[in-house]
């Protein structure tokens, strides 16, 4: 139930209602229905939605080494897929990738890492 209320709150704010007004309206409605005790749970559900939405909109570029200019140049060409410029992408170092790059976010992933290539070869030779 709290998920539905949190979802409604999120949509109210997205549709232009100020956060303070949205929360007040929700609280008044819950109080009228004798459900004010749900408020802390709704807050937690709202946080979950917020973090999920943030994770969805964030695009992360993972590389094996910090100064891998070649990988970065190759990855830049893929930014357009996500509708992002260079400054909008969060960069992370993931040494387990061995080399290459991996771009993920907005429900999509492009994996051009060496680790992925080696795992494809391993799985092809071992399990097929």
């Amino acid at each position, binding site marked *: 139930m709290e998920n539905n209320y949190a979802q409604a709150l999120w949509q109210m704010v997205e549709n232009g209602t100020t956060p303070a007004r949205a929360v007040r309206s929700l609280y008044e409605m819950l109080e009228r229905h004798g459900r004010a005790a749900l408020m802390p749970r709704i807050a937690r559900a709202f946080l979950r939605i917020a973090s999920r939405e943030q994770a969805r909109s964030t695009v992360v570029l993972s590389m094996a080494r910090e100064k891998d200019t070649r990988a970065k140049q190759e990855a830049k060409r893929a930014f357009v897929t996500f509708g992002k410029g260079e400054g909008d992408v969060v960069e992370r170092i993931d040494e387990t990738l061995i080399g290459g790059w991996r771009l993920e976010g907005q429900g*999509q992933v492009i994996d051009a890492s060496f680790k992925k290539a080696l795992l494809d*070869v391993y799985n092809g030779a071992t399990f097929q």
Partner: protein
Amino acid sequence: MNNSTVQKIIKEIESYTPRTSVKQSGVVTAVGDGVVLIDGLPGAVMGEMVLFDETRGKNLEHATKGVAPLYGLILNLEEDGARAVLLGDTARVSEGMTVESTGRVLSVPSGEELLGRVVDALGNPLDGKGPFKKATMMPVEREASGVIDRTSVTKPLQTGIKAIDAMIPIGRGQRELIIGDRSTGKTTIAIDTIINQKHELEGKCPVCIYVAIGQKESKTARIAAQLRAADALSYTIIVDAPASAPAALQYLAPFAGAAIGEYFMDNGRDVLVVYDDLSKQAVAYRQLSLLLRRPPGREAYPGDVFYLHSRLLERAACLSEEKGGGTLTALPIIETQDGDVSGYIPTNVISITDGQIFLDSSLFNKGVRPAIDVGVSVSRVGSAAQTKAMKSVAGTLRLELAQFRELESFMQFAQDLDKATAERIESGRRMVEVLKQANGAPMPFEAQVVVLYAAIHKTFAQTPIDKVREAEAKLMAFFDAHHVSFLEEIKKTKALSDELKKKLDDALNRFQKAHKELFV
């Protein structure tokens, strides 16, 4: 590392082309009971396979620990994500794990290589004989052949069981349900049918697929051993989704069996698929549906449980010559509770199939085995496929047996019986004896014709009832010793000409003279 492994790796590296395509991704938000709730995957489609990324944050050494990649199957599409069933161990999935779409529907390997093998519902070998090298991948879910691609069922599928081949004949491409209570011999009929295919002429033997759903591993092992002992495993594939397998695999196993069979059917071969049993598949599907939060209907089965079986059994077909002329015969098995055929799943499957073989526990307990209730059993299309020879000997058999059953129940109340009635009862009893058959001993078609011909022509009329089966065995031994060419002619022509009938009458007279002890 041995040489073949090195060669395999070199081959993989040589054929490797880097794929950096954009894939849809999502995140696992909840997992339990084989069902995963995935957030994201905006472009996922129903029935698509998704790959769980277990390698994230692990170095290559830990990522290659010898376990196959873990896949799931999308079965529910929701507003913010999807629900998928796991095709592997639930313990390998954790919250926050990345899931990637593959753009592939579930497929299983099929081909000649699979003959004689035991595989799981995903086509992975279970018999330790190594992986398949030249298998063709077949989609597990495929639309059934259309009206234009099909033709009428005309070729018989001999089960080797006298009662079935004579009274409830099955044609290649037919769907014949085997239904009955537990321990009434349902699996035995299916296995005997598989074993009997070895009697087929060279090149006519169908590929047999036995799909074990929710069965005990020990039972499947016993069946595999029985098939091996009878030299029937070489043309048989066993698809095993045991009771210990996840519900998703038990649900998928019959579809995998059908997919494997379709490969052979598409190549013009005849295929026989036994689904043992679909009631367990329905239970597995009910479990999955409830876990997927689909609304429950009658007996808590989901609303599409009829479609589950209809789309599976509709894949049985007799293809036209233009399509190669292959056939896929389905023998689904349904277990009833206390003889109740009016249950939800039994009535569904009865209405889908082209007939049913009903096994009666009371007949079984009386020693009538196979315990086929001829009155309730029916084959709607098989008679068109019955051979002339069998038709000529089995024409009145069904009626005679039905009359005998009526008289038998009447006899329990009547004191005195007139001569004609008493004779009919005696004749019926002998016929019941003739139709009895031992487990694992299917009878070739030509032998059945001879035995049934002898029975309807009152050859055993003077034989004591307890010696009818002995007389039948001796009759076959007599024909094997003295009239092999006669049996071969019936097998070849599949008809009983007047000349053959005359020869048969002479042979039966000689048999009666040679075994006077059996005719008192």
